[in-house]
């Protein structure tokens, strides 16, 4: 559908034009990769877990996708009052088409950003076990991107004030990242933490990417993908429902 396409294209065009933003958003992941990756590397190795950079590169990619996707939804809050969103809300097209276009656009941007970080990890010394698995890993990355773009749309549709932004960052985005096993192995965790990691969708995303890229997985790639698809469907439906309820 042309409406979905043009709204998707709009997000991608805006992303490609915002050079400064692209560079700025590399800062966080680079810090994790550089400081944690090399800083904790020796300890990780002494614990007999191998290279920490190898281990955490998939996690940093997951983190980038999470942050980029969530940010696009939060920008929606602003967009609703001072931006383009209202223009689309009064257009004679179904809300669902607008939601899908925006969400896919946000997800594509997140995947592009994830790709950029993937290249950075390669430069830093990350080596995937098999090149053939890279495209498959990107399918999992795309799933992560859709899940969090849809969630971001749901949140962006529900919040009324900018103050909510801080809440979402502190109580949703950061925990999602820290509980995902992006920066530590899931084996032998204390019970409560272990249980929490299991309800975090990003856990399965990172585990799937890691499984495909370096052959190390906790749940198995098949289970990871199944969970991601399930959560993805659920979140897209939820996002579409919340989006249909926006009163401008």
């Amino acid at each position, binding site marked *: 559908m*042309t*409406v979905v396409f*043009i*709204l998707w294209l*709009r997000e991608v*065009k*805006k992303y490609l*034009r*915002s050079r400064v933003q692209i560079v700025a958003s590399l800062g966080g992941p680079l810090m994790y990769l550089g400081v944690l990756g090399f800083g904790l590397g020796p300890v990780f190795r002494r614990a007999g877990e191998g290279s920490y950079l190898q281990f955490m590169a998939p996690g940093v990619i997951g983190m980038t996708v999470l942050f980029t996707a969530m940010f696009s939804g939060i920008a929606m809050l602003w967009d609703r*009052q*001072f*931006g*383009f*969103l*209202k*223009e*689309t*809300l*009064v*257009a*004679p*097209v179904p809300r669902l088409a607008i939601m899908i276009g925006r969400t896919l656009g946000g997800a594509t941007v997140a995947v592009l950003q994830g790709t950029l970080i993937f290249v950075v990890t390669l430069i830093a010394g990350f080596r995937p076990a098999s090149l053939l698995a890279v495209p498959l890993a990107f399918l999992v990355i795309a799933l992560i991107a859709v899940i969090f773009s849809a969630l971001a749309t749901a949140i962006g549709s529900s919040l*009324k*004030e*900018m103050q909510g932004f801080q809440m979402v960052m502190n109580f949703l985005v950061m925990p999602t990242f820290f509980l995902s096993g992006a920066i530590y192995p899931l084996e032998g965790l204390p019970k409560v933490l272990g249980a929490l990691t299991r309800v975090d969708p990003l856990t399965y995303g990172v585990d799937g990417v890691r499984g495909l890229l370096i052959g190390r997985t906790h749940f198995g790639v098949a289970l990871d993908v199944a969970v991601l698809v399930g959560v993805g469907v659920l979140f897209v439906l939820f996002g579409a429902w919340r989006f249909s309820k926006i*009163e*401008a």
Partner: protein
Amino acid sequence: MSDQPIIRVQHVIKSFGKVTAVNDVSFDVRAGEIFAFLGPNGAGKTTTIKMLTTLLRPTSGSLELDGLDPATHQTEVRRRFGVVFQDPSLDSDLTAWENMDIHGVLYHLPRRARRERTETLLRMFELWDRRDDLVKTFSGGMKRRLEIARGLLHTPKVLFLDEPTLGLDPQSRNQMWTHVRNLNQAERVTVFLTTHYMDEADRVADRIAVIDHGRIVATGSSAELKQQTGTDSLEAAFLALTGTTIRDESATAADQMRQVARVWRR
């Protein structure tokens, strides 16, 4: 001008919890006229526009645009109007042309018609030379003109302008009204505008409805309002009708966001 009203609002009430923003409002807008809603901020002007533009449903009462109910015939009604909201709704990271083009796609205009009409409108609003520039490089007046041009792209029957001159300098305001008058004549489009500047309502509008505290206190041409109140200026008429001068009501959440936006505006 036909006798059939293009907009008909009857006994409309809109409440948000305990607050009644629009309280039993009734009025007609005739096809082809410039109709102004004059009242202070918080009087219920924007809420009325939101109901007519399908963004809000009334608590009770009935609305009609070109014979259709905005609440039940959303898509058909949306094809029939263009709107410029109080707050900008352009994509400032895209060019003027791209903003127009997306609008054309959203309103299902064929590519050819989209291009031709975009060119006509951009020329009419003196933005043709800047069509490939990003909107964020535009002045306030240019942005507003672009929004109006965009609102007209799908040849609507009614154009809603919610406080179109807010935040513009006097020169841009003048220019804006010249444009609005011209297009009303050239395109035979009905213009429904809100303002809290009395001189503007006086100058552009064929008919004015004065609204205060969610109620319409008088409707008529500027001359009729003056005659009705026995005053010689619209300002005095307004004073006689509402017992107050135009003033600001307390700030809403949107007002607070606007404050922040002013600081961060690019």
